[in-house]
Every structure is written in structure tokens, then in C-alpha cells.
């Protein structure tokens, strides 16, 4: 694997796992990586934590930074929210999330 690259595992809405290589030096977030691989993540608001279309469930043990107020507000009004819900656009691609497993939330409107 190239330097400055990690692997993230995304489980799509059909239960299929996709192992994606993501660069750690391009300031990308999980939502952007999914979209660059043409996974069905709408990312309607472009990554501003204003639409919740990138909602996913954290299925691995990785510790993520605390959620911002914006993210919590957004999840507040989303559908299909679980305790392990996160917004993909708020998860930055860096070494600490190498091997992370995230499951895409249903497209609840």
C-alpha cells in the first residue's frame, strides 16, 4: 500500500463490504471517499453537516473524536439514528481510523 494511505471498510445498504484505499494527505473525509468510489452516498450538503445523507454506523472499535454540536444537531433530526451513528462527512481520513468499519445508514429521505 502506498505511503499516506489507509484502508477503510464500508458496508453498503445491501450488506456488501467495500475495502477502500483513502489518502491521508488530502484532507478528505469518509463521505468524500465513498463518493469518489461511487458508493451511493448522496452527501447532499457537500459536507457541511447539514443533511445527514452520509449517516453511517460505527461497527469497529475505533475511537473517533467527540461529535460537534453541528453533527449532533443534524443527527437529532435524521431518521434511523442509532447510538453508534456518525456523519461520514465529519470523519477525517487519517492514520487513526485505519481499518475502520462503517455501515451506511438507510436512505431515510
Amino acid at each position, binding site marked *: 500500500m502506498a505511503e499516506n494511505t489507509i484502508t477503510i471498510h464500508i458496508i453498503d445498504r445491501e450488506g456488501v463490504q467495500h475495502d477502500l484505499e483513502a489518502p491521508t494527505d488530502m484532507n478528505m473525509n469518509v463521505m468524500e471517499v465513498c463518493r469518489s468510489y461511487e458508493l451511493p452516498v448522496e452527501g*447532499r450538503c457537500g459536507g457541511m453537516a447539514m443533511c445527514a445523507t452520509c449517516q453511517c454506523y460505527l461497527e469497529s472499535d475505533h475511537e473517533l473524536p467527540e461529535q460537534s454540536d453541528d453533527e449532533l444537531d443534524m443527527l437529532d433530526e435524521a*431518521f434511523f439514528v442509532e447510538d453508534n451513528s456518525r456523519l461520514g462527512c465529519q470523519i477525517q481520513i487519517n492514520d487513526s481510523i485505519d481499518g475502520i468499519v462503517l455501515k451506511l445508514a438507510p436512505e431515510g429521505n
Partner: protein
Amino acid sequence: MIETDIIIIGAGPVGIFTVFEAGLLKLRCHLIDSLPQPGGQLTEIYPKKPIYDIPGYPTVDAGELIDRLMEQSAPFKPGFTLGESAVTIDEVEDNQFIVTTDKGTKHKAPIVMIAGGLGVFQPRKPPVANLENFEDNGVEYIIKDPEMYQDKRVVVAGGGDSALDWSIYLVENEIASELSLVHRRSSFRGHLDSVQKVMDLADKGKINLITEAEVVGLSGNGSLNAVDIKHKDGSQITKETDHFVPLFGLKPTLGPISTWGLEIEKNAIKVDTRDYSTNRPGIYAIGDVNTYEGKLKLILCGFHEGTIAVQSAFARIFPDKKNVLKYTTVNGVNGFE
């Protein structure tokens, strides 16, 4: 019937700026938008967010950009039909179009420019089984006519300002005979004043506050008569009610745009990059709503597209006139009387 030169569907930044460019060519515009105010996503979703890539502005808040655009377009006196969605585009004689909204308002012009952004804002519907069976039969997504709820039992669901404000309104004005507010979390996101007021009304027993719960089912024979509410702890109750009003905000959808006979690709309208025209002569698509090879969904790209499109519109309306590009530095801005 509203008659104009260019009907612009969508009053976001691109629609508003197009009024200016059209005005320089002495073309009048009328804008239609489903939201009650101009500005599109910028005003509706992120008015306080700074934007850093508008030429000439190292940083500008979205709401302020709209204000500046409205100011820039004002000399060309655009008309606005707000709070209404364009539903149909019909071709009539003399190469004219009639655009009709969901409220029946008709607009006639030789040119239509669709600056619809991500689509028309429609209410987000919660994933509750049978929800659509009860639409207009007890389920409403927008409160247009509060009197409809006079002496009725109402269940409102949602955690934002809309849910809070309507709950307060229906109780303080003694409209609903009974009002329950259901929210999935234990705290609300809205303005602190509204949250406090709801809490006060709940303490007085005027609002039945059901938190950490969601409406999961509806029942009734033709008309709604009860909702099932499930609590986070797994317990479930059935609550008799006359109305269920889920207030979960708005989301943009292509909606009627997909029924206008245009070429749609990935939820966007395909255009010819020479003039951003669609497959229907006289109809253009500009801004986020269009797509073409190399398209970038940036406001500044929409500005450019609108500018090019109005040149083409001019040539279409006045095929015998030759338009000479006049610079504003030479000509100034000659607003309409």
C-alpha cells in the same frame, strides 16, 4: 397571467444573478420559488456559513451574498412568485411557455430558465408505515391553515423550531383540544426561548411532552384516529388523535422537474455547454440543477452559465437583432423604469 421575457424557476443565487445579466440586455425576469423567501439553499439552510470562493469576496456569509445579489439585481425590478412550486411547463402559440405553479399561478414567457439547484424543497417524511395513506386524512406536513386544528387532538413530531413553534401556537391560541409533542431525543434543538416556552407549557399540563420516543405507526378507518408511539426503552403506547403533523424540516428533490420532458442524468438536467440549453428549445438549465462533462457544482459556475444563457435567450427572442456586448464600465447599469 404574469407575462415577462424570462421565467426563472428557482430564486437562489444563480437565479437572482441571472436577473442582472438579463437586465443588461433589457430582458425582464420573473422568478418562481417554493420557499417563502429568495436565496435558495443559502438563505434556507446555511445563511451564516462563510463562503470563500465567490470572486471578489475573500469571505462572505451565504445570507449576505444573497442580500448583495438582490441589491445588484434590484434595478431590473424582478417579479417574484414565492411559496409556490412550478409544476408544469406548457408550450403555447408563438413559441411561448406557460409555467403553472401548484397554487395555479400562471406565468407566460418565451424563455424559461431552470435554476432549481438541488430541487424543490419538500417536507421530509418520517419512515412510518402507512404514512402516505393518511395524507390529507389526518397527516399534514405543513400547517397552512391552523383553524383546521380547532378543537382537534394533534400529535406533532420533531425536535426543531418548526415543531416547537407550532406546538406553542396551537396551544397558546387555544386551537388544539389536546397537543402532544413527540421527539426522539430528550432535548430540543430550537431557539432557547421556544424550548423554554414548551417546557413551561408542559409543566402547566398544556403540552403533553413525549421525549425519547418516535411515532412508529398510524391507524384509522379512512381518516387517522390513532398513532403508535414507541419509547427508547422499547415500550409502546397507542394514542388517539385526529392529526399527526411530522415537522422534520425540508429536503430538496427534483420533483416536478423530472416530468418536464428534459434529459435527466444523476438527478440533474443535461445541457448543451454552448448556451446551457436543454433538449427543449427555449428552456435552459443553469446552476447546480444542470449537468455536463466537467460540471462543477459551484455558485460561481452558475453565475457564468446564467450569463451565457441570457445571450442565447436574447438571440432567440430577437433573431433579427444583433446584440453587441456592452461592458458595464462603458454603459453603466440602466435599470428599468
